[in-house]
Every structure is written in C-alpha cells, then in structure tokens.
C-alpha cells in the first residue's frame, strides 16, 4: 500500500463536487413512533440486502469517571444474552442467516449494527428487538467480557501508536471522558457491578434517546410498520440523565511527554483541544485542515515530511469534533533518529498556515475535492447509514448533502486565516513521543 486510509473527523470524511448537481432529495425519510423512537429510512433497491444502525445517546459521556468503561461494557453485553436467548444462541442465529450483528459504545453515542439479507428481515428484527429490549446481563457473561477488555487493554500496549493516543488524550482532556479509553481501565472495570450495568441500560437505552437508520431494499411504510410491531411497546424512559459537559481548558503552554519503548520508529502526536461539531467554523476548519494535513497527498504536511524529506510513510492532521470539543492532532511515525527534525517541521507548518493562510489554488483544489467527492460517501449502504446517523445525531439536517456543498463553497481565504489563528495553537500544545528515547533524543529547542 502506498498510503493510509482517510479519517476526517467522526467518520465524516467529506463530500461532493463538480458541476454535478447533487440530488436535492433528503438523505432519508424520518418518522417518529408514538413512544418517541425515531426511524430514518432510505430505500436502495439495487441489491436484496439491508443495513440497520441503532444509535443511542449512551456514550462514555454519560458514565461516571470512577466507572470508566461502563458505557462500553453495557453496549458490548447487549448481544451476550437476553431473557430468552443465550449468547451462543444469538451468535448461531445471526450466523445462520449470514448476517452480522454487533454493538459498541463510542464517546458520544452507542450503536448496534445489523447487516442482513432482505429475506431475513423478520428474523433479523426479532433478534434486534430482543437484544435492545431484553438483555439479561448475566454475571458470567459480565466477568468474561471484563477479562477480555482487560486483556485487550494490555495487548494495546504493544502498539506504539495506540500508546501515544492514550497518553495524548489523557494529557489533553484530563479526567473528562474524552481523556480516557472507552474500555476504561483495570481498576474501573473491576469496580463495575451488575447493578450499575443494569442501571445504565435502564436509564439510557430508551426509545426517545434512540433512533434507527435503515438503508437498503425496503419499502418505507412496510419497514416502519414492522419496526413498530417489535419496538412500539418499548417503554419511554423515566428519569433524567446527566452527562459530562465541556472538558477543562488546556493550559496555555507546551507539554512534552516521552514514553520509552524498544521500537524502530518514534510515534508522535502533537495537538490540543479542538472544536465541537456544532461550531459554525467546522466548514472553514475542514477546508483549512484538508490543506494542512487532512488531504493526504494534497496536504502540506505530506508534501514536506514525506515527499520532500522521506521522513514518514504516514503523516496527517485531524480534528475530531463531537458533542464536546474533541482534539486536534497531527500524527506521524518516523525512525527514532529523525523525530526531532520532523516535529520541528510540523510546528513550522502550523505557524505558516496561521501567519500566511493558504493560496488561491490550494483553496480551489480543496473545495473541489471536498464537494466533488460527495458521491463517494453515498455509494454503499454502510456508508449511507453511517452518514445519515451522524447527520441525525449532530442535528445537521437531512438536507445536509446540499447544505454541505454551499457551506464549503462559501469558505473564503480570510476565513481560513481566521480559523487557523483561533484553533491552531503552536504556542500551547501537547507533544507525545513514544520512541526509543536514546535514539530519538531531541533537545527542547527542537520544538520551538
């Protein structure tokens, strides 16, 4: 492979271009059931397959700090047994129809995903409703999953990139949920009780906190009526729930953290807090970041660090906006010996874009990609379901496809300069270097 995948923000990698006219149709049809459950349906009849994504306001933002991992554990256990089915029976039923069913938590929301053949919709919905409404949270299954998560946390220490990510988030967000792994840690996982899991499920997995996105070979009215049959009686939630709000702001200084490992490459992350998804500057920042380090081979960071110097295979920058301000980070790996010069180059690029902005050509090219690649975000059921659910969760409107075009098109050079100056902070960042520290020695002056 010659390069890395694209991740720009929360799976919103980015949209459509050209003098192509984007369909002015909404991304999906929305319908709200009597119990507050929202359904978003998009028919796509090319193949007899269906993708169903359940999105619940039950991410790690809603868990107490001393119970880190509670949201994730709850989500993972949904498919590990119900009042009438064991975990093994669920697995076998799903596999027998060639489907896939998975559940997981994120920081902002939790998800249950089901992909299946059209002909198996009745069976699939029955299973889906069962794991949503009647999870049993059996003690043995909890213990098993906790052991697995602890082992996974250990194994992650083998990956220097993951180690860097963990340390970086902790330094940037402190005790805020954005600052810790979704899985929690050894101590918090040991502390979580079955009652706490049941309580978290009861308070957060309720129809008015949930929406379901369905993309594929379905008739809108028929699928809505099928879902009403299996989930219409899901009782509304009772209490009010609280979540973590804004993380404490980062101190305005440079913080350097070195982790020593016997690796051949320094894994480097440099960055700080970023923006919320509802920040109106999101679009100007998207264009700015594409030019800086989000645009792969069209980006300045790849040009300087990979193409010109051969220091890295992969270098990129990204904002990760969420309900709360996520991070801004530049990530790269380079042999231990060139860690210092590569970091210097990154800081120089941050300064340059803040001082000089971007050229007319860079702006035109970035917009052309961001708007022109839109069809590529809508060409499979899975991509559509992901986009529709993100658009719904962050309240971007089902006309987002069209609005996005306009919002990107309207970004001007002075907007780029303005947002670069506000949101990039080369004077106050966190720098994490996981490396063989003897070989990667760089002086403090390297980062100025």
């Amino acid at each position, binding site marked *: 492979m010659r390069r890395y995948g694209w991740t720009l923000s929360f799976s919103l990698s980015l949209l459509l271009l050209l003098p192509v006219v984007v369909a002015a149709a909404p991304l999906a049809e929305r319908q709200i059931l009597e119990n507050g459950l929202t359904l978003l349906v998009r028919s796509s009849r090319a193949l007899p397959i269906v993708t169903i994504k359940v999105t619940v306001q039950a991410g790690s933002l809603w868990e107490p700090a001393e119970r880190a991992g509670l949201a994730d554990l709850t989500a993972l256990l949904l498919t590990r047994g119900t009042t009438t089915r064991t975990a093994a029976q669920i697995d076998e039923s799903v596999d027998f*129809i060639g489907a896939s069913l998975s559940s997981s938590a994120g920081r902002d929301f939790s998800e249950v995903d089901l992909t299946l053949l059209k002909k198996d919709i009745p069976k699939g919905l029955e299973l889906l409703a069962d794991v949503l409404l009647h999870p049993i949270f059996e003690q043995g299954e909890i213990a098993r999953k906790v052991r697995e998560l602890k082992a996974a946390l250990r*194994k992650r220490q083998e990956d220097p990139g993951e180690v860097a990510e963990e340390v970086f988030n902790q330094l940037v967000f402190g005790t805020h949920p954005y600052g810790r792994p979704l899985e929690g840690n050894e101590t918090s996982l040991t502390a979580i009780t079955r009652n706490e899991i049941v309580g978290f499920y009861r308070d957060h997995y309720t129809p008015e906190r949930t929406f379901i996105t369905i993309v594929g070979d379905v008739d809108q009215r028929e699928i809505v009526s099928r879902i009403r049959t299996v989930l219409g009686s899901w009782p509304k939630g009772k209490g009010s729930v609280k979540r973590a709000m804004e993380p404490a702001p980062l101190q305005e200084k440079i913080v350097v953290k070195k982790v*020593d490992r016997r*690796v*051949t*490459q320094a894994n480097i992350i440099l960055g700080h807090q970023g923006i919320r998804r509802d920040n109106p500057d999101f679009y100007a920042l998207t264009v700015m970041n594409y030019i800086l380090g989000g645009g792969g081979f*069209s980006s300045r960071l790849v040009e300087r660090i990979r*193409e010109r110097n*051969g220091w890295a295979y992969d270098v990129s920058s990204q904002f990760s906006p969420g309900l709360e301000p996520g991070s801004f980070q530049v990530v790269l790996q380079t042999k231990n010996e060139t860690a210092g010069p590569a970091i210097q180059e990154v800081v120089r690029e941050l300064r340059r874009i803040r001082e000089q902005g971007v050229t007319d050509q860079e702006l035109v090219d970035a917009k052309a990609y961001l708007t022109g690649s839109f069809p590529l975000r809508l060409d499979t059921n899975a991509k559509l379901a992901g986009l529709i659910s993100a658009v719904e969760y962050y309240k971007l409107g089902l006309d987002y496809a069209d609005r996005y075009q306009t919002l990107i098109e309207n970004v001007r050079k002075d907007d780029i300069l303005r947002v670069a100056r506000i949101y990039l902070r080369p004077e106050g960042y966190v720098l994490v270097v996981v490396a063989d520290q003897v070989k990667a020695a760089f002086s403090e002056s390297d980062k100025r």
Partner: protein
Amino acid sequence: MVQNLADAQVTARVAESTLENGLKVLLLEEHKAPVVTVHIWYRVGARNEQPGITGLSHLLEHMMFKGTSMVGPGQFSRIIKKNGGRDNAFTSEDYTGYFETFASDRVELALKLEADRMRGLLLDPKEVESEKKVVMEERRLRTDDDPVSALREAMEAVAFESHPYRQPVIGWMTDIEGLRRGDLVRYYNMYYVPNNAVLIVVGDFKGEELLPKIRHYFGSIPRAADPPAVRAVEPEQRGERRVLLKKEAELPFVFMGYHVPNLKQPDNFALEVLAYILSGGKSGRIYKSLVYEKQLALFAGGGYERESIDPNLFPLYASVMPGKTAEEVEQALTAEIERVKNELISDRELQKAKNQIEAGFLFGQDSVFNLARQLAEYEIVADWRTWEAYLPGIRAVTAADLQRVAKTYLTPDNRTVAVLIPEKMKK
C-alpha cells in the same frame, strides 16, 4: 432460498475485450450510484522477485506516483483529488493494482493518466532515493514495530522453502535499502506493458461509449515480450516446522499455516467452507471454543488463501490470553482441526457456513470498488470467469468432503507453527 438471488450472477454482465496489444479489458455497468471505479492491475508482485531484490514490485508501485513527462512528481493524486476522486495502489504476492474512484463523468481522466504512466515513468534518481526512505518507514510501521505482523512474516519465510511466497511483499529491510534505479527500470520495462495488465471499470457508464475511449488511450501502446514465467514449485512438506520470534510484547501469539491447494484445484470449495466452519462469525468453532468457552484467546480465527496464483496457506491464528500459554492455545487449535477429521459436521452447521458465504457474496457487491477488486483478483490469479464457479462449487460441498480435506491437508507434518515470545515491555 438465497440461491435464486445470488444466481443472478454478476459475472453474466461483464463485457470482456482484449485490445490488439494484449491489454485485457473488463467492463461492468452498475448504475445504482453516480460513481465509477477504474482499476488497472499488473501481473507482477513479490512472487516475481528474487532474493536480494525483494520489495522491488512495491517500491515500483510507489514510484508510479513520482512523475512522468506529462505529470510531475506527486501531481497524479492531486489531479484525481481536484476532480473529487480518490486513488491509491497496493502490491501483493501476485499483483500490483492501481485505482481511481470518482463521479462517473470523470472516468476519462483516469484512463488518460493510467495510460500515461503505463509507459511514461521517469524514475528520477532523486525521487527513487527519497521514496526508498518512505518505504523503509512503511516497513518499520507495518512490520518491524508490530509483533503480530513480524510473526506472520517469520511464519511465511519458514513455511515456503523454494517458492517466492516466502518473501515479504514490502521486502527485507536491507534489500529495500539496496534497490537501485536500474533495478526499477528493468522491472518496469519488463512488467508494465499492456499484455501484462488488466483494466477493469465498474460503475455508472455505458460500455459502448467507454470502449472506444479505452482504445484511444491505450491502443497505441506497443505490445512487448511476455514477461518470464515464475517456475518455482514448493516441494511437499515432510514434517512440522517451527519458528519462534522474540519481541517486546504483552501477550504471546500463535500462527499455524498448512499448505493447501488454491482455487485451481477442485478441493478449494471444501477448504473454503471449512474456513467458515472454523472461523465464520462468533459461532465459528475456533472463536466459540478458544475465545468464548475456554477463554484461552483474546481473539482467534483463520482463513484460506484461496485466490492465489500458486498454492498458498490455510492459516489459523490466536492471541493468547493473560495467564494462558501458547502451548495451551496451540493444543486447542489442533483439537478443533482433529474434531473436523473425527466427527461428521451436522447438516445445520454445514448449511450455516454456506449461508454465510452466499450472504457475503451479495454484501460484497454493494461497492463498485469491491466488485472491481474481485474481478481483477480472479482475472490475475486464474481467469475472471472462475468467479462464476464459486457459488455452485460451494453448494456442492458435503460433510464428507470437509472431513476428507481436513484429513488430507490439515496434518501436523504439513504445517508451520510460529510463536511470538513476548519480551518484557519497558514501562
């Protein structure tokens, strides 16, 4: 039940042509989304390399983005992006593939750029040196600092004695370092010729309009001598091989690889079904036993390297849980293999594996990129039409076939076992 759905075989809609210079063209119209993907794959990969020049196919893949007389270094991807597209490339043991995906009205741009770099590469010495450094970083990232990939590399180097499948696609570090411009020029001239390539376009276009354009851009590129065949044949393995790798890691890891036939042999269908029995989903036997019931492994599974020019491996793997040993995990994996040999698989379990394969076949057609990749891969390793035989072959597999292939191929004497021994991490 699924049968009639999947029988609307996608291959029936593929239009094949071969230009006079030997370039094979496969067109598949898919009008569900206004996008198109253009793939051009060359019949060259690590399989064509010799000791000392490993990684050459992959370095050349990188150099394909570093400039022709028409398109400057690094401009290729910029042009594609400006047009709202995404492009990339990949190298395997058997092939090197390039693709561009974008809104369907841009299709001609990809044809023009690909035709240009098929024969117009500059291979500027400065760019070669710089890109070698990038590839060395890629090797550090993907292999040297990743204990599991390093283990897989070690296993393959031992599983194959004489066949070039023993060589890592990215190349050994000292080989990458020693590659020279002359190597690249020779290789490029030998393999990057129309009669050694296949062009696949899938998506929203009209074949009768596109084919003349393809002729226009590629038709005048002269045919060259056919590249030399790879003649290496791996001899039969007569006794288990073992390889240990010590690296800084938290948990042990086990790989096992058995030599098996590829899709050109009739037994491939039974082996494919067997791979699903063992590791298809969470009810697959390996996951269910090692991960769920015994909790010996954090994750575990297997696969079957079926789409491969020469016979390849049937790998199994497991990440050992804390407090458990590699030996216990190895025994548990072996026990699952023995169980297949000793007990006939039930009708329901056999049907489950077939259902998973059939459903997967349909899910895989949701993306034009994936359709193009499948067609290209089948064409390179055998012939794209062999894809048609897949579902009928799978449906015909019986429980007795599974038992027979397990007994024939999954024997201790025919396997390589690789174990990662963790060295203490610095804390």
